[in-house]
Protein backbone atom coordinates (compact mmCIF):
# COMPACT_ATOMS: atom_id res chain seq x y z
CA UNK A 1 0.00 0.00 0.00
CA UNK A 2 1.14 3.54 -0.67
CA UNK A 3 2.25 5.84 2.09
CA UNK A 4 -0.70 8.19 1.65
CA UNK A 5 -4.00 6.78 0.42
CA UNK A 6 -6.94 9.09 -0.11
CA UNK A 7 -10.12 7.21 -0.82
CA UNK A 8 -13.35 8.75 -2.13
CA UNK A 9 -12.71 11.91 -0.17
CA UNK A 10 -15.58 14.39 -0.14
CA UNK A 11 -15.63 17.55 1.92
CA UNK A 12 -18.74 19.65 2.28
CA UNK A 13 -18.69 23.00 4.04
CA UNK A 14 -21.81 24.58 5.41
CA UNK A 15 -21.66 28.34 5.22
CA UNK A 16 -24.73 30.21 6.41
CA UNK A 17 -27.15 27.51 5.32
CA UNK A 18 -25.48 26.98 1.94
CA UNK A 19 -23.56 23.83 1.31
CA UNK A 20 -20.35 24.05 -0.69
CA UNK A 21 -18.71 20.92 -2.01
CA UNK A 22 -15.02 21.75 -1.69
CA UNK A 23 -13.84 18.27 -2.61
CA UNK A 24 -15.78 15.74 -4.62
CA UNK A 25 -14.91 12.05 -4.47
CA UNK A 26 -11.12 12.32 -4.68
CA UNK A 27 -9.08 9.14 -4.79
CA UNK A 28 -5.31 9.42 -4.84
CA UNK A 29 -2.33 7.45 -3.71
CA UNK A 30 1.08 8.89 -3.02
CA UNK A 31 4.08 6.59 -2.85
CA UNK A 32 6.84 6.72 -0.28
CA UNK A 33 9.71 9.00 -1.31
CA UNK A 34 7.72 10.73 -4.05
CA UNK A 35 7.49 14.46 -4.65
CA UNK A 36 3.83 14.79 -5.44
CA UNK A 37 2.33 17.99 -6.79
CA UNK A 38 -1.30 18.95 -6.35
CA UNK A 39 -2.11 21.78 -8.70
CA UNK A 40 -5.25 23.73 -9.37
CA UNK A 41 -6.61 27.24 -9.76
CA UNK A 42 -7.33 29.12 -6.56
CA UNK A 43 -10.57 27.90 -5.03
CA UNK A 44 -10.21 24.47 -6.64
CA UNK A 45 -10.03 22.81 -3.22
CA UNK A 46 -6.35 21.90 -3.12
CA UNK A 47 -5.70 23.51 0.27
CA UNK A 48 -8.62 21.59 1.74
CA UNK A 49 -7.21 18.42 0.20
CA UNK A 50 -3.77 18.84 1.77
CA UNK A 51 -5.35 19.66 5.14
CA UNK A 52 -7.21 16.37 4.93
CA UNK A 53 -3.90 14.51 4.84
CA UNK A 54 -3.13 15.53 8.44
CA UNK A 55 -6.81 15.77 9.36
CA UNK A 56 -6.79 19.52 10.03
CA UNK A 57 -9.90 19.21 7.89
CA UNK A 58 -11.93 16.12 8.62
CA UNK A 59 -13.55 14.64 5.53
CA UNK A 60 -17.35 14.56 5.25
CA UNK A 61 -17.15 11.23 3.40
CA UNK A 62 -14.27 8.98 2.48
CA UNK A 63 -11.06 8.20 4.27
CA UNK A 64 -7.38 9.00 4.50
CA UNK A 65 -4.80 6.32 5.23
CA UNK A 66 -1.27 7.13 6.31
CA UNK A 67 0.92 4.00 6.35
CA UNK A 68 -2.19 1.82 6.43
CA UNK A 69 -3.69 3.69 9.39
CA UNK A 70 -7.15 5.09 8.80
CA UNK A 71 -6.95 8.54 10.40
CA UNK A 72 -10.65 8.57 11.26
CA UNK A 73 -10.14 5.63 13.62
CA UNK A 74 -7.62 7.54 15.76
CA UNK A 75 -8.48 9.29 19.02
CA UNK A 76 -7.61 12.99 19.40
CA UNK A 77 -4.47 12.05 21.33
CA UNK A 78 -3.39 9.46 18.78
CA UNK A 79 -4.08 11.91 15.97
CA UNK A 80 -1.85 14.53 17.59
CA UNK A 81 0.91 11.95 17.84
CA UNK A 82 0.41 10.99 14.19
CA UNK A 83 0.68 14.64 13.15
CA UNK A 84 4.24 14.70 14.48
CA UNK A 85 5.08 12.32 11.64
CA UNK A 86 3.68 14.79 9.11
CA UNK A 87 5.50 18.12 8.83
CA UNK A 88 3.81 21.09 7.22
CA UNK A 89 4.92 24.42 5.76
CA UNK A 90 2.72 27.29 4.66
CA UNK A 91 2.50 30.21 2.24
CA UNK A 92 2.79 32.73 5.09
CA UNK A 93 5.44 30.72 6.95
CA UNK A 94 3.46 30.89 10.23
CA UNK A 95 6.48 31.24 12.46
CA UNK A 96 6.11 32.33 16.07
CA UNK A 97 6.95 36.02 15.83
CA UNK A 98 7.90 36.32 19.50
CA UNK A 99 10.40 33.47 19.45
CA UNK A 100 13.81 33.48 17.82
CA UNK A 101 14.83 31.10 15.05
CA UNK A 102 16.29 28.47 17.37
CA UNK A 103 13.22 28.46 19.66
CA UNK A 104 10.94 28.26 16.64
CA UNK A 105 12.70 25.11 15.45
CA UNK A 106 12.65 23.69 18.99
CA UNK A 107 8.91 24.37 19.25
CA UNK A 108 7.53 21.10 17.79
CA UNK A 109 10.03 19.20 19.94
CA UNK A 110 8.89 21.12 23.02
CA UNK A 111 5.32 20.12 22.19
CA UNK A 112 6.40 16.51 21.77
CA UNK A 113 8.02 16.67 25.23
CA UNK A 114 11.66 16.42 24.13
CA UNK A 115 14.26 17.66 26.65
CA UNK A 116 15.28 21.23 26.00
CA UNK A 117 18.96 20.34 25.68
CA UNK A 118 18.30 17.61 23.11
CA UNK A 119 15.91 19.88 21.24
CA UNK A 120 18.60 22.55 20.89
CA UNK A 121 21.13 20.08 19.55
CA UNK A 122 18.61 18.88 16.97
CA UNK A 123 17.63 22.46 16.05
CA UNK A 124 21.24 23.40 15.41
CA UNK A 125 21.66 20.38 13.15
CA UNK A 126 18.59 21.44 11.18
CA UNK A 127 19.87 25.00 10.84
CA UNK A 128 22.86 23.50 9.09
CA UNK A 129 20.58 21.54 6.75
CA UNK A 130 18.75 24.70 5.68
CA UNK A 131 21.91 26.85 5.57
CA UNK A 132 20.97 29.34 8.25
CA UNK A 133 23.56 28.62 10.95
CA UNK A 134 24.29 32.31 11.51
CA UNK A 135 20.65 33.24 12.19
CA UNK A 136 19.84 31.18 15.28
CA UNK A 137 19.37 34.22 17.54
CA UNK A 138 17.43 36.28 14.96
CA UNK A 139 13.69 36.88 15.20
CA UNK A 140 11.41 36.16 12.22
CA UNK A 141 10.84 39.90 11.64
CA UNK A 142 14.55 40.25 10.86
CA UNK A 143 14.51 37.58 8.15
CA UNK A 144 13.64 37.69 4.46
CA UNK A 145 10.79 35.60 3.06
CA UNK A 146 13.13 32.91 1.80
CA UNK A 147 14.93 32.72 5.14
CA UNK A 148 11.60 32.48 6.97
CA UNK A 149 10.57 29.57 4.76
CA UNK A 150 13.91 27.87 5.47
CA UNK A 151 13.25 28.22 9.20
CA UNK A 152 9.75 26.83 8.65
CA UNK A 153 11.22 23.86 6.76
CA UNK A 154 13.72 23.22 9.57
CA UNK A 155 10.86 23.43 12.08
CA UNK A 156 8.74 21.01 10.05
CA UNK A 157 11.62 18.53 9.95
CA UNK A 158 12.38 18.74 13.68
CA UNK A 159 10.29 15.73 14.69
CA UNK A 160 11.75 13.57 11.88
CA UNK A 161 8.54 13.31 9.89
CA UNK A 162 8.14 10.84 7.04
CA UNK A 163 5.86 13.22 5.12
CA UNK A 164 6.22 16.94 4.42
CA UNK A 165 3.17 18.90 3.28
CA UNK A 166 3.81 22.20 1.50
CA UNK A 167 0.80 24.48 1.17
CA UNK A 168 1.64 27.12 -1.48
CA UNK A 169 5.06 27.27 0.17
CA UNK A 170 6.62 29.34 -2.62
CA UNK A 171 3.66 31.52 -3.59
CA UNK A 172 4.80 34.47 -1.48
CA UNK A 173 8.38 34.31 -2.77
CA UNK A 174 10.15 35.81 -5.78
CA UNK A 175 11.33 33.49 -8.60
CA UNK A 176 14.95 33.19 -7.44
CA UNK A 177 13.95 32.43 -3.85
CA UNK A 178 11.33 29.99 -5.12
CA UNK A 179 14.08 28.15 -7.03
CA UNK A 180 16.30 27.93 -3.96
CA UNK A 181 13.45 26.67 -1.76
CA UNK A 182 12.46 24.08 -4.38
CA UNK A 183 16.07 22.97 -4.62
CA UNK A 184 16.18 22.59 -0.85
CA UNK A 185 12.98 20.52 -0.88
CA UNK A 186 14.41 18.28 -3.58
CA UNK A 187 17.61 17.87 -1.57
CA UNK A 188 15.63 16.95 1.55
CA UNK A 189 13.62 14.45 -0.46
CA UNK A 190 16.79 12.84 -1.81
CA UNK A 191 18.86 12.77 1.37
CA UNK A 192 16.16 12.00 3.94
CA UNK A 193 13.75 10.07 1.74
CA UNK A 194 10.81 12.14 2.94
CA UNK A 195 7.64 12.04 0.90
CA UNK A 196 6.81 15.60 -0.13
CA UNK A 197 3.36 16.82 -1.14
CA UNK A 198 3.40 20.21 -2.84
CA UNK A 199 0.27 22.28 -3.25
CA UNK A 200 0.62 25.03 -5.81
CA UNK A 201 -1.10 26.99 -8.53
CA UNK A 202 2.13 27.40 -10.50
CA UNK A 203 2.83 24.81 -13.18
CA UNK A 204 6.52 25.79 -13.07
CA UNK A 205 6.78 24.52 -9.48
CA UNK A 206 5.34 21.16 -10.51
CA UNK A 207 7.52 20.75 -13.59
CA UNK A 208 10.63 21.75 -11.66
CA UNK A 209 10.53 19.28 -8.77
CA UNK A 210 7.53 16.97 -8.82
CA UNK A 211 7.60 13.40 -10.05
CA UNK A 212 3.84 12.93 -10.01
CA UNK A 213 1.00 15.38 -10.15
CA UNK A 214 -2.71 15.54 -9.53
CA UNK A 215 -4.77 18.27 -11.14
CA UNK A 216 -7.71 19.45 -9.11
CA UNK A 217 -10.49 21.36 -10.81
CA UNK A 218 -13.60 22.52 -9.02
CA UNK A 219 -13.14 20.04 -6.20
CA UNK A 220 -12.70 17.13 -8.57
CA UNK A 221 -9.65 15.18 -9.62
CA UNK A 222 -9.22 16.10 -13.28
CA UNK A 223 -6.11 14.11 -14.04
CA UNK A 224 -3.25 12.39 -12.28
CA UNK A 225 -0.02 10.75 -13.35
CA UNK A 226 3.67 11.26 -13.97
CA UNK A 227 4.59 14.91 -14.56
CA UNK A 228 6.42 14.39 -17.87
CA UNK A 229 3.52 12.38 -19.29
CA UNK A 230 0.95 14.97 -18.35
CA UNK A 231 3.15 17.76 -19.64
CA UNK A 232 3.52 15.98 -22.99
CA UNK A 233 -0.08 15.00 -23.47
CA UNK A 234 -2.53 16.58 -21.10
CA UNK A 235 -5.99 15.10 -21.51
CA UNK A 236 -8.15 17.25 -19.24
CA UNK A 237 -9.09 20.84 -19.96
CA UNK A 238 -7.81 21.88 -16.55
CA UNK A 239 -4.39 20.40 -17.30
CA UNK A 240 -4.23 22.07 -20.72
CA UNK A 241 -5.20 25.34 -19.15
CA UNK A 242 -2.54 25.10 -16.47
CA UNK A 243 0.15 24.13 -18.96
CA UNK A 244 -0.70 26.81 -21.52
CA UNK A 245 -1.15 29.33 -18.75
CA UNK A 246 -4.35 30.73 -20.18
CA UNK A 247 -7.93 29.75 -20.67
CA UNK A 248 -8.72 27.48 -23.59
CA UNK A 249 -11.39 29.14 -25.65
CA UNK A 250 -14.25 27.00 -26.88
CA UNK A 251 -15.39 29.24 -29.71
CA UNK A 252 -15.05 27.13 -32.83
CA UNK A 253 -17.11 29.61 -34.91
CA UNK A 254 -14.44 32.27 -34.75
CA UNK A 255 -11.64 29.91 -35.59
CA UNK A 256 -13.43 28.11 -38.44
CA UNK A 257 -11.23 29.72 -41.06
CA UNK A 258 -8.01 29.18 -39.14
CA UNK A 259 -5.78 26.25 -39.85
CA UNK A 260 -5.37 23.22 -37.68
CA UNK A 261 -3.13 23.87 -34.72
CA UNK A 262 -1.00 21.33 -32.92
CA UNK A 263 1.13 21.40 -29.80
CA UNK A 264 4.35 19.45 -29.90
CA UNK A 265 6.65 18.67 -27.04
CA UNK A 266 10.29 17.82 -27.62
CA UNK A 267 11.70 15.00 -25.58
CA UNK A 268 15.30 14.91 -24.45
CA UNK A 269 16.90 13.32 -27.51
CA UNK A 270 14.72 15.00 -30.11
CA UNK A 271 15.92 18.36 -28.88
CA UNK A 272 19.28 17.71 -30.57
CA UNK A 273 17.85 17.25 -34.05
CA UNK A 274 16.56 20.06 -36.22
CA UNK A 275 13.18 18.34 -36.54
CA UNK A 276 11.19 21.33 -37.73
CA UNK A 277 13.77 22.33 -40.36
CA UNK A 278 13.95 18.78 -41.63
CA UNK A 279 10.17 18.62 -41.77
CA UNK A 280 9.88 21.79 -43.82
CA UNK A 281 12.60 20.58 -46.19
CA UNK A 282 10.88 17.24 -46.55
CA UNK A 283 7.32 18.42 -47.19
CA UNK A 284 8.30 21.66 -48.90
CA UNK A 285 5.45 23.37 -47.09
CA UNK A 286 5.86 26.17 -44.59
CA UNK A 287 4.31 25.85 -41.16
CA UNK A 288 3.55 28.77 -38.91
CA UNK A 289 5.22 28.70 -35.49
CA UNK A 290 2.73 30.40 -33.18
CA UNK A 291 4.56 29.86 -29.95
CA UNK A 292 7.77 28.28 -28.74
CA UNK A 293 8.96 27.79 -25.20
CA UNK A 294 11.34 25.70 -23.15
CA UNK A 295 10.59 24.56 -19.65
CA UNK A 296 12.42 22.75 -16.95
CA UNK A 297 10.53 19.52 -16.30
CA UNK A 298 12.07 17.45 -13.51
CA UNK A 299 15.54 18.77 -14.24
CA UNK A 300 15.52 18.30 -18.05
CA UNK A 301 14.74 21.00 -20.59
CA UNK A 302 11.53 20.38 -22.50
CA UNK A 303 10.75 22.34 -25.64
CA UNK A 304 7.16 23.14 -26.44
CA UNK A 305 5.79 24.56 -29.69
CA UNK A 306 2.43 25.49 -31.14
CA UNK A 307 2.30 25.06 -34.91
CA UNK A 308 -0.35 26.05 -37.44
CA UNK A 309 -0.43 23.34 -40.13
CA UNK A 310 -1.01 23.85 -43.85
CA UNK A 311 -4.63 23.74 -45.04
CA UNK A 312 -4.09 20.59 -47.08
CA UNK A 313 -5.41 17.83 -44.80
CA UNK A 314 -3.27 15.08 -46.28
CA UNK A 315 -0.08 17.04 -45.82
CA UNK A 316 -1.16 17.90 -42.27
CA UNK A 317 -1.64 14.24 -41.41
CA UNK A 318 1.71 13.37 -42.92
CA UNK A 319 3.40 16.10 -40.93
CA UNK A 320 1.82 14.83 -37.72
CA UNK A 321 2.97 11.29 -38.47
CA UNK A 322 6.45 12.53 -39.29
CA UNK A 323 6.66 14.38 -35.98
CA UNK A 324 5.43 11.36 -34.05
CA UNK A 325 7.98 9.13 -35.79
CA UNK A 326 10.66 11.53 -34.62
CA UNK A 327 9.69 10.91 -31.03
CA UNK A 328 7.73 14.06 -30.37
CA UNK A 329 4.49 14.23 -28.41
CA UNK A 330 1.81 15.71 -30.65
CA UNK A 331 -1.64 16.88 -29.66
CA UNK A 332 -4.33 19.08 -31.15
CA UNK A 333 -4.39 22.55 -29.72
CA UNK A 334 -7.62 24.50 -29.62
CA UNK A 335 -6.69 27.67 -27.83
CA UNK A 336 -5.37 30.95 -29.06
CA UNK A 337 -1.63 30.65 -29.21
Amino acid at each position, binding site marked *: MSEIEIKNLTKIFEIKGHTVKALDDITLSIEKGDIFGIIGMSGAGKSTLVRSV*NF*LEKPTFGSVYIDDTDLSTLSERE*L*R*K*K*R*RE*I*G*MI*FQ*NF*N*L*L*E*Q*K*NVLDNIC*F*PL*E*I*AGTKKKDARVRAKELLKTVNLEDKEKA*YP*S*QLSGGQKQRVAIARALA*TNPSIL*LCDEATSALDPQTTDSILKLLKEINETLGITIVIITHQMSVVTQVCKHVAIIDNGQLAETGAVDEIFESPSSDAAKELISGKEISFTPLKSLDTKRKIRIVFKENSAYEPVISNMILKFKTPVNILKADTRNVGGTARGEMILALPEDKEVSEEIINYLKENGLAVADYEGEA
Partner: protein
Amino acid sequence: MFDSKVIGMIIEGIRDTLYMTLGSTFIGYALGLPLGILLYVTSDKGLRPNKVIYGIGDFICNIIRSIPFLILLILLIPFTRLIVGKSYGSTATIVPLVICAAPYIARVVESSLKEVDSGVIEAAKAMGASNIQIIFKVLLVEAKTSLFTGFTITTGLLLGYSAMSGTVGGGGLGDIAVRYGYYRWQTDIMIVTVALLIIIFQIIQNLGTFVAGRIDHRKR
Protein backbone atom coordinates in the same frame (compact mmCIF):
# COMPACT_ATOMS: atom_id res chain seq x y z
CA MET B 1 -1.66 74.95 55.08
CA PHE B 2 0.74 72.12 54.08
CA ASP B 3 1.90 71.18 57.57
CA SER B 4 3.36 67.80 58.38
CA LYS B 5 -0.11 66.45 59.12
CA VAL B 6 -1.38 67.22 55.65
CA ILE B 7 1.80 65.94 54.00
CA GLY B 8 1.55 62.73 56.04
CA MET B 9 -2.05 62.38 54.93
CA ILE B 10 -1.13 62.87 51.28
CA ILE B 11 1.68 60.29 51.48
CA GLU B 12 -0.80 57.90 53.06
CA GLY B 13 -3.18 58.76 50.21
CA ILE B 14 -0.54 57.85 47.61
CA ARG B 15 0.10 54.57 49.39
CA ASP B 16 -3.62 53.72 49.57
CA THR B 17 -4.16 54.67 45.94
CA LEU B 18 -1.32 52.43 44.77
CA TYR B 19 -2.54 49.63 47.05
CA MET B 20 -6.07 49.80 45.65
CA THR B 21 -4.98 50.17 42.03
CA LEU B 22 -2.37 47.43 41.97
CA GLY B 23 -4.32 45.14 44.31
CA SER B 24 -7.46 45.30 42.20
CA THR B 25 -5.46 44.95 38.97
CA PHE B 26 -3.74 41.76 40.13
CA ILE B 27 -6.82 40.16 41.67
CA GLY B 28 -8.81 41.37 38.65
CA TYR B 29 -6.36 39.55 36.36
CA ALA B 30 -6.57 36.41 38.49
CA LEU B 31 -10.26 36.31 37.58
CA GLY B 32 -10.32 38.13 34.23
CA LEU B 33 -7.44 36.35 32.50
CA PRO B 34 -8.95 32.84 32.76
CA LEU B 35 -12.36 34.29 31.86
CA GLY B 36 -10.88 36.02 28.81
CA ILE B 37 -9.18 32.79 27.71
CA LEU B 38 -12.46 30.94 28.20
CA LEU B 39 -14.30 33.51 26.06
CA TYR B 40 -11.67 33.20 23.32
CA VAL B 41 -11.63 29.39 23.37
CA THR B 42 -15.42 29.01 23.31
CA SER B 43 -16.13 31.74 20.73
CA ASP B 44 -17.33 30.53 17.34
CA LYS B 45 -13.85 30.78 15.83
CA GLY B 46 -12.07 29.54 18.96
CA LEU B 47 -10.27 26.31 19.68
CA ARG B 48 -13.39 24.66 21.04
CA PRO B 49 -16.52 26.62 20.15
CA ASN B 50 -19.31 26.31 22.70
CA LYS B 51 -22.32 28.55 22.26
CA VAL B 52 -23.71 27.99 25.78
CA ILE B 53 -20.52 28.71 27.72
CA TYR B 54 -19.64 31.65 25.48
CA GLY B 55 -23.19 32.99 25.78
CA ILE B 56 -23.13 32.90 29.59
CA GLY B 57 -19.67 34.50 29.85
CA ASP B 58 -20.56 37.10 27.25
CA PHE B 59 -23.81 37.96 29.08
CA ILE B 60 -22.17 38.32 32.52
CA CYS B 61 -19.41 40.53 31.09
CA ASN B 62 -21.90 42.77 29.34
CA ILE B 63 -24.18 43.11 32.40
CA ILE B 64 -21.41 44.10 34.80
CA ARG B 65 -19.76 46.39 32.27
CA SER B 66 -23.01 48.21 31.59
CA ILE B 67 -23.48 49.19 35.26
CA PRO B 68 -21.80 52.54 36.03
CA PHE B 69 -18.98 52.03 38.54
CA LEU B 70 -20.45 54.38 41.13
CA ILE B 71 -23.73 52.41 41.13
CA LEU B 72 -21.82 49.11 41.30
CA LEU B 73 -19.91 50.45 44.29
CA ILE B 74 -23.16 51.05 46.16
CA LEU B 75 -24.89 47.89 44.93
CA LEU B 76 -22.00 45.78 46.16
CA ILE B 77 -21.87 47.22 49.71
CA PRO B 78 -23.53 44.16 51.33
CA PHE B 79 -21.25 41.82 49.39
CA THR B 80 -18.18 43.85 50.32
CA ARG B 81 -19.20 43.78 53.98
CA LEU B 82 -19.56 40.00 53.74
CA ILE B 83 -16.06 39.57 52.37
CA VAL B 84 -13.97 42.27 54.06
CA GLY B 85 -16.11 42.88 57.15
CA LYS B 86 -16.63 46.59 56.47
CA SER B 87 -17.75 48.70 53.54
CA TYR B 88 -15.31 51.63 53.75
CA GLY B 89 -11.54 51.99 53.53
CA SER B 90 -9.09 50.99 50.82
CA THR B 91 -9.27 47.20 51.30
CA ALA B 92 -13.06 47.33 51.03
CA THR B 93 -12.77 49.37 47.83
CA ILE B 94 -10.75 46.60 46.19
CA VAL B 95 -13.86 44.36 46.14
CA PRO B 96 -16.01 46.48 43.80
CA LEU B 97 -12.90 47.45 41.81
CA VAL B 98 -12.16 43.77 41.15
CA ILE B 99 -15.80 43.03 40.24
CA CYS B 100 -15.73 45.99 37.86
CA ALA B 101 -12.32 45.12 36.41
CA ALA B 102 -12.62 41.36 35.87
CA PRO B 103 -15.11 41.47 32.94
CA TYR B 104 -13.25 44.42 31.45
CA ILE B 105 -9.98 42.48 31.67
CA ALA B 106 -11.69 39.41 30.18
CA ARG B 107 -12.67 41.49 27.13
CA VAL B 108 -9.22 43.01 26.79
CA VAL B 109 -7.63 39.54 27.00
CA GLU B 110 -10.14 38.10 24.51
CA SER B 111 -9.39 40.80 21.97
CA SER B 112 -5.61 40.42 22.44
CA LEU B 113 -5.86 36.68 21.80
CA LYS B 114 -8.01 37.27 18.73
CA GLU B 115 -5.14 39.24 17.21
CA VAL B 116 -2.95 36.15 17.11
CA ASP B 117 -2.54 35.00 13.51
CA SER B 118 -4.77 31.98 12.87
CA GLY B 119 -2.02 30.56 10.64
CA VAL B 120 0.31 30.20 13.61
CA ILE B 121 -2.39 28.32 15.51
CA GLU B 122 -2.94 26.09 12.50
CA ALA B 123 0.80 25.42 12.32
CA ALA B 124 0.81 24.42 16.00
CA LYS B 125 -2.15 22.09 15.40
CA ALA B 126 -0.31 20.54 12.46
CA MET B 127 2.62 19.87 14.81
CA GLY B 128 0.31 17.93 17.08
CA ALA B 129 -0.16 20.55 19.82
CA SER B 130 -3.10 20.10 22.19
CA ASN B 131 -5.45 22.96 22.96
CA ILE B 132 -3.81 23.52 26.36
CA GLN B 133 -0.40 23.70 24.67
CA ILE B 134 -1.78 26.11 22.08
CA ILE B 135 -3.14 28.39 24.83
CA PHE B 136 0.01 28.47 26.96
CA LYS B 137 2.75 28.05 24.38
CA VAL B 138 1.29 29.88 21.39
CA LEU B 139 -1.56 32.27 22.25
CA LEU B 140 -0.24 33.77 25.49
CA VAL B 141 3.29 33.99 24.08
CA GLU B 142 2.37 35.52 20.73
CA ALA B 143 -0.11 37.95 22.30
CA LYS B 144 2.18 39.03 25.13
CA THR B 145 2.78 42.58 23.85
CA SER B 146 -0.90 43.20 23.32
CA LEU B 147 -1.73 41.59 26.68
CA PHE B 148 0.79 43.81 28.41
CA THR B 149 -0.61 46.92 26.72
CA GLY B 150 -4.05 45.84 27.94
CA PHE B 151 -2.62 45.42 31.42
CA THR B 152 -1.30 49.00 31.35
CA ILE B 153 -4.63 50.38 30.14
CA THR B 154 -6.49 48.44 32.84
CA THR B 155 -4.16 49.72 35.57
CA GLY B 156 -4.75 53.29 34.41
CA LEU B 157 -8.49 52.75 34.37
CA LEU B 158 -8.49 51.30 37.89
CA LEU B 159 -6.39 54.22 39.12
CA GLY B 160 -9.21 56.50 37.98
CA TYR B 161 -11.90 54.28 39.47
CA SER B 162 -10.07 54.03 42.80
CA ALA B 163 -10.16 57.83 42.97
CA MET B 164 -13.88 57.77 42.21
CA SER B 165 -14.45 55.44 45.15
CA GLY B 166 -13.26 58.31 47.35
CA THR B 167 -16.79 59.71 47.21
CA VAL B 168 -18.02 56.86 49.37
CA GLY B 169 -15.10 56.87 51.79
CA GLY B 170 -12.84 54.58 49.85
CA GLY B 171 -9.58 56.19 50.95
CA GLY B 172 -6.62 57.21 48.84
CA LEU B 173 -5.98 60.38 46.87
CA GLY B 174 -9.50 60.58 45.46
CA ASP B 175 -10.92 60.50 48.98
CA ILE B 176 -8.65 63.38 50.01
CA ALA B 177 -9.57 65.40 46.92
CA VAL B 178 -13.27 65.01 47.62
CA ARG B 179 -13.12 65.63 51.38
CA TYR B 180 -10.78 68.63 51.31
CA GLY B 181 -11.33 70.05 47.86
CA TYR B 182 -15.07 69.62 47.59
CA TYR B 183 -16.54 69.57 51.10
CA ARG B 184 -14.02 72.00 52.69
CA TRP B 185 -13.31 74.24 49.71
CA GLN B 186 -9.54 73.69 50.06
CA THR B 187 -8.73 73.96 46.39
CA ASP B 188 -4.95 73.82 46.89
CA ILE B 189 -5.10 70.35 48.43
CA MET B 190 -7.38 69.21 45.64
CA ILE B 191 -4.96 70.53 43.02
CA VAL B 192 -2.05 68.72 44.68
CA THR B 193 -3.92 65.41 44.79
CA VAL B 194 -5.04 65.76 41.17
CA ALA B 195 -1.46 66.58 40.16
CA LEU B 196 -0.26 63.49 42.02
CA LEU B 197 -2.88 61.33 40.25
CA ILE B 198 -1.71 62.69 36.90
CA ILE B 199 1.93 61.93 37.76
CA ILE B 200 1.10 58.39 38.91
CA PHE B 201 -0.92 57.82 35.73
CA GLN B 202 1.93 59.09 33.55
CA ILE B 203 4.42 56.80 35.28
CA ILE B 204 2.17 53.76 34.82
CA GLN B 205 1.47 54.55 31.18
CA ASN B 206 5.05 55.36 30.18
CA LEU B 207 6.47 52.39 32.04
CA GLY B 208 3.88 50.18 30.33
CA THR B 209 4.66 51.51 26.87
CA PHE B 210 8.39 51.14 27.49
CA VAL B 211 8.15 47.54 28.69
CA ALA B 212 5.72 46.60 25.91
CA GLY B 213 8.22 47.89 23.36
CA ARG B 214 11.06 45.97 24.97
CA ILE B 215 9.31 42.60 24.99
CA ASP B 216 7.98 42.89 21.43
CA HIS B 217 10.07 41.08 18.81
CA ARG B 218 7.75 41.64 15.89
CA LYS B 219 9.40 44.72 14.44
CA ARG B 220 12.81 46.19 14.83
